[in-house]
């Protein structure tokens, strides 16, 4: 099937020093790579999850895909259109197809606007003719399971879960084909997380949406995504079918992440893998395999040679020298 979204070797670089400072210090590479050669594709109706911890570059990648951050290298294609290098006015018509949801359920809603204004705003922005905004607001509210009287509320009067639903309604307004959701369950209670994820799943099967979900929460990923990629220092270190990865994680980092999200049982703690140290700085990437500073299995080869992305026996890819050994 044709890919809806296809990213190839995307690289996002940020300036780490001011122009003047880099001139004075004669630093001819005053940049850091927040996203470092990532490739992924999303098919129609599919859910792809980008998993990573803070600083892994997952949010930057999502923003590069939605054109909020400029990617310097690689290609991001939506259907047949190249997204990298588009000006904001050229990108605008595409925003009807690619909607984005942000982390903070309440903070991502303009505080002085009512729910009705918020969820009908996409129509106003894109000049879509609507006869009755109130009616349209009611339709969208009922789609996300909120009663019609919420239309007159302000964001600060909503609970986290309700605000998240409003965010979903806003994303749905223009009938997009792809929704990029940055931490859709962040800041929500467990009982509410399920509601939001179920809502997304229902909407996806009804409307045939594709979802690109960015999250740090592995236990959520298992249930909602078809395929996933795990990011560390701006790269995918493991990528493949969600089921495969959960059954047979190949990369030691993935294994550690999985063990940290194990099921809540007081007798299960021996299974946890404790990683040493912290995530290295993007300014000083480790030599060789970038994970070797924290890897419990690191060997000499890991400290000197960069591993290639390899296919494991179960068909998914992982970037590790010891892929068959562990």
């Amino acid at each position, binding site marked *: 099937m044709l890919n809806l979204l296809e990213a190839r070797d995307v690289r996002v670089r940020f300036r780490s020093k001011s122009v003047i400072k880099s001139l004075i210090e004669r630093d001819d590479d005053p940049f850091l790579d927040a996203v470092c050669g990532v490739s992924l594709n999303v098919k129609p109706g599919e859910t792809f999850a980008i998993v990573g911890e803070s600083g892994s570059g997952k949010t930057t990648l999502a923003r590069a895909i*939605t054109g*909020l951050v400029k990617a310097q290298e690689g290609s991001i294609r939506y259907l047949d259109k190249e997204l990298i290098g588009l000006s904001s006015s050229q*990108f*605008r018509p595409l*925003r*009807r197809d690619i*909607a*984005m949801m*942000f*982390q*903070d359920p309440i*903070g*991502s*809603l*303009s*505080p*002085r*606007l009512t729910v009705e*204004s918020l969820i009908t*705003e*996409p129509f*106003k*922005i*894109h000049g879509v003719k609507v006869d009755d905004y109130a009616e349209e607001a009611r339709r969208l509210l009922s789609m996300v399971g909120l009663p019609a009287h919420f239309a007159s509320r*302000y964001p*600060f*009067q909503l609970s986290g879960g309700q605000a998240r639903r409003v965010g979903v309604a*806003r994303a749905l307004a223009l009938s997009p084909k792809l929704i990029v959701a940055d931490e859709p369950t962040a800041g929500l209670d467990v009982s509410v997380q399920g509601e939001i994820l179920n809502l997304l799943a229902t909407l996806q099967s009804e409307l045939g949406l594709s979802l690109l979900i960015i999250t740090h929460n592995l236990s959520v990923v298992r249930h909602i995504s078809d395929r996933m990629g795990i990011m560390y220092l701006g790269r995918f270190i493991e990528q493949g079918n969600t089921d495969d990865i959960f059954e047979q994680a190949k990369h030691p980092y993935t294994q550690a992440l999985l063990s940290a999200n194990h099921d809540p049982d007081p007798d299960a703690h021996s299974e946890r893998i404790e990683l040493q140290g912290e995530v290295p700085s993007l300014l000083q990437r480790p030599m060789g395999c970038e994970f070797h500073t924290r890897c419990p299995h690191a060997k000499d080869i890991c400290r000197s040679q960069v591993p290639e992305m390899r296919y494991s026996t179960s068909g998914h890819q992982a970037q590790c020298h010891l892929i068959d050994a562990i």
Partner: protein
Amino acid sequence: MTVSSLKQMLVMPSFEFLTGFKLAIKRLCKEPLGLLGLILVTLIVGSAILAPWIVPHDPIAIDVLNRLKGPSAEHWLGTDQLGRDIFSRVLMGSQVALKVAFSAISLALGFGLLLGLIAGFGPAWLDHIIVTLFDTVRSFPTIIFALAVVTLTGPSLTTIILVIVVTSIPIYGRVVRTQTQALSAQEFILAERALGASMPRILGVHMLPNVIGQLLILASMDVPIVITIEAGLSFLGLGIQPPTPSWGTILNDGYLFIRNTPWMIIAGGIPLILCTLGFTFLGESLRDIFDPKLRKDI
């Protein structure tokens, strides 16, 4: 910026505001201090508009026989050194005071808002230019600046307004710039960008309502300050020319004759105090009303 987007920016916010305008007045009446402010301001503005018809005496008619008299049934606030009725002069003076205050502040607020939004949300180089400009203007003492302008143009009401506008733009501009910068780091602005909202829309619909509250209170507290600046400039002979009455000239006359009679300075001071209180109370309640989070009834 296209014409339609300009229209969008100008029409959208005012439209979303006006729906709540009646409600705002209703809410204002519920707060005791807000109501007091509203009454005082209405009183001052009302008397300024009606002044020519309600003054009991001609404010510039000289009556040397009755000079420096205390309050009486004939002259409620007494008479000045030329025997002019002070009450009538205060009433007429409010016209000048408010004319200067409103025109100067609304112009300064408008320009300050625009420049502040551009500096706060626009590219960094533009921000640098605008902030440098603000600092340059603020580094001139107002009076010296006024003297310089008057030497070039001659004293007049327009000159006073011009001087006040130019020197207050940076005050508003800086507040708006700081607020805009704080807001643009917030997620909802990013969310609007991801939705494809144009720059004018982000500024007009999402930034403006969040900075206008602060600005309104600043502006209403500025009214009495501007009136005193006008008074000061008039005293130096750079503003209102005698015999036209203004609160500044009344105060200054009162200051000269304070040994003979305290009435003049009291008569010139009271409206200034009432004005300060009225506009400050009104400004504070307006801020609360425009911020849905501070509203008490929901």
